[in-house]
């Protein structure tokens, strides 16, 4: 048994009728690591996370989660895992402290009162503890959710798009907390759509159409894509993008604010394609592809390439 791996699963598969939501995904996450879990909507992120915490029974696959068998010991895994659902799933007609107290009881937390008190303190919820959860704003709801996930001292946190609908300041504070907790030895698997959040992760796993595409550090992921990217500045970028899109070698042309990123995997072909557009009007420069370029590139890969 490899104690260093918090998650070590392979061949995880889930089917819903005809649809295969998760198709033989292998994933290893080291203890104390923050693993970003990326992929477009409907690619199977939530289903995969739900299988890890015993909410869904995998149709196929094996492995361990915190050293315990993901199929057989799902009840034992539940005790050591904190799961934050995509949608706020605490009791809106209970107050913050009542919610936390309930969760603590469900997990048989020792010294429950102290645990609830500490968790309120730690996430700055003490003043609002009597407020009903349903009346909280997005940022506070998310704090409550995090506090609740942590109350039983889990070793692994599975967070499913935890910062959706949360303002930038609250998001930053949230991520600081995550890094702090990771420093204490907690392992994270965080599903997200935000590139800035992805860049804060130690490692990334990208899934598309139910399959795992890439797995590695940010740099590794970018390098694996072997993408060449040109940045264009100047007027009428929309028109440039439209004209350039159909040309051989150009795989994507995406606007980034006032800039246009044109990317392709074949550097030579790409350079040929953009040659007619390199006029006085526009400033062209080759740049390092960003994570976002890479992800859009992967998401737009044709189906056959993914399933091959």
């Amino acid at each position, binding site marked *: 048994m490899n104690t260093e791996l918090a998650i070590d699963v392979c061949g995880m598969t889930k089917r819903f009728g005809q649809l295969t939501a998760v198709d033989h995904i292998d994933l290893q996450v080291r203890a104390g690591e923050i693993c970003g879990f990326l992929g477009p909507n409907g690619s199977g992120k939530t289903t995969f996370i739900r299988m890890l915490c015993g909410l*869904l029974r995998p149709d196929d696959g094996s492995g361990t989660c915190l050293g315990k068998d993901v199929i057989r010991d799902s009840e034992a895994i539940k005790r050591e895992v904190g799961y934050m659902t995509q949608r*706020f*799933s605490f009791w809106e007609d209970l107050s913050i402290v009542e919610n936390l107290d309930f*969760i603590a009881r*469900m*997990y048989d937390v020792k010294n429950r009162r102290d645990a609830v008190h500490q968790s309120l303190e730690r996430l700055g919820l003490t003043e609002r503890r009597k407020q009903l959860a349903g009346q909280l704003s997005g940022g506070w709801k998310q704090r409550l959710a995090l506090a609740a996930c942590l109350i039983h001292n889990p070793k692994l946190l599975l967070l499913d798009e935890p910062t959706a609908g949360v303002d930038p300041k609250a998001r930053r504070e949230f991520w600081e907390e995550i890094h702090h907790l990771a420093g204490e030895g907690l392992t994270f698997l965080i599903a997200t759509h935000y590139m800035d959040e992805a860049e804060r992760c130690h490692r990334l796993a990208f899934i598309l159409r139910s399959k795992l595409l890439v797995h590695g550090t940010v740099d590794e992921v970018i390098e694996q894509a072997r993408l060449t990217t040109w940045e264009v500045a100047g007027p009428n970028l929309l028109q440039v993008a439209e004209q350039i899109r159909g040309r051989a070698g150009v795989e994507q042309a995406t606007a980034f604010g006032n800039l246009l990123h044109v990317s392709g995997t074949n550097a030579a072909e790409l350079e040929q394609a953009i040659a007619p557009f390199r006029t006085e009007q526009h400033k062209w420069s080759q740049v390092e592809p960003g994570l976002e370029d890479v992800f859009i590139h992967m998401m737009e890969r044709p189906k056959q390439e993914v399933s091959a």
Partner: protein
Amino acid sequence: MKAPRFSFARFKAIIVKEFIQMRRDRLTFGMMVGIPLLQLVLFGFAINSDPKHLPTAVLVADHGPHGRTILQAIRNSSYFDFVSQVTTETQAHEALARGDVQFVVNVPENFSRELLRGDRPPILVEADATDPAATGNALGSLGTLLDGALQNDLKGPLAFLSGTNGPVELRVHAHYNPENITQYNIVPGLMGVVLTMTMILITGLAITRERERGTMENLLSMPTRPAEVLVGKIIPYILVGYIQVTLILLAAHFLFHVPMVGSVPLLLIAVFVFITANLAVGITFSSLAANQLQAMQMTFFFFLPSILLSGFMFPFRGMPHWAQAVGECLPLTHFLRIVRGILLKGNGLQEIYIQLAEIAVFAAIALAIGVKRYHQTLD
């Protein structure tokens, strides 16, 4: 600012949207069609306020020819079906108390001899009158029936016996509710009806609400067993059920002066079994329903036959056999017999345990379905 004009296009858009949503929610649509059909069947075919073929026991102490004639006439009236013969008064009362028979017709000793002597011997009819509606017509028919019954026997020289008052005297003992007060029957029954409605509805909603609000996912991600969740959710409502029972019992006693002949503690024990059965139904419904509205509709779908086929509103024995068979499957039917039996007849455990066992079996089946359908996972 001027209010926008009524737009026909917008109006049409709303109508179209409603139709689309109606079509998507199959269950609701099914209920909209199913409930009128159910009502049609129940009201049209099952309910009969003039119950006939009521089970009757006979206690014959005189085997003379005229007693037989009278029994024959009673049997021919279509109100009375002779289902058993008893030999003692005690047996007769037991049969009434258990509810095996609605009437006991008693032909006393020396009936024929006294008849021929012109002594106007009595025919004693003992009735279980807990539900006045069930016995009213049958008892009403008896008077004329007896007068006509002996016409053939009392011909020629015996014709004088027919007399002005009739040859026999009809004595009716309306047991348990001698004054035919409808409330005595309805108010205890109401206890069962109220419990059925609220217990099923509340538990049905309690679990679908978790699902609708997304909190179910959270609950399932925690280390819990189905029994902890289900039983934990049930207990508070059992308490609520007892509050309802207490209120109804107090009202029955102080407001309606319903007699309480039997043991109230025994009733409270029976209530527990009945509440459990209803909560189990509620849990099963909530495991089948996708949302709170559907749970509510299912409750209504169950409640309708419960109230109509259990003997609460209409005499149970007035219904055709298929409706009685359906009624026998409903816990309310058995609970009504228990609560009326205990309060009005003074039944003890011995008379009610079969009914109680049937409710318990129902509860066990419903709970088994509920627990089986309640998934520990989201799939």
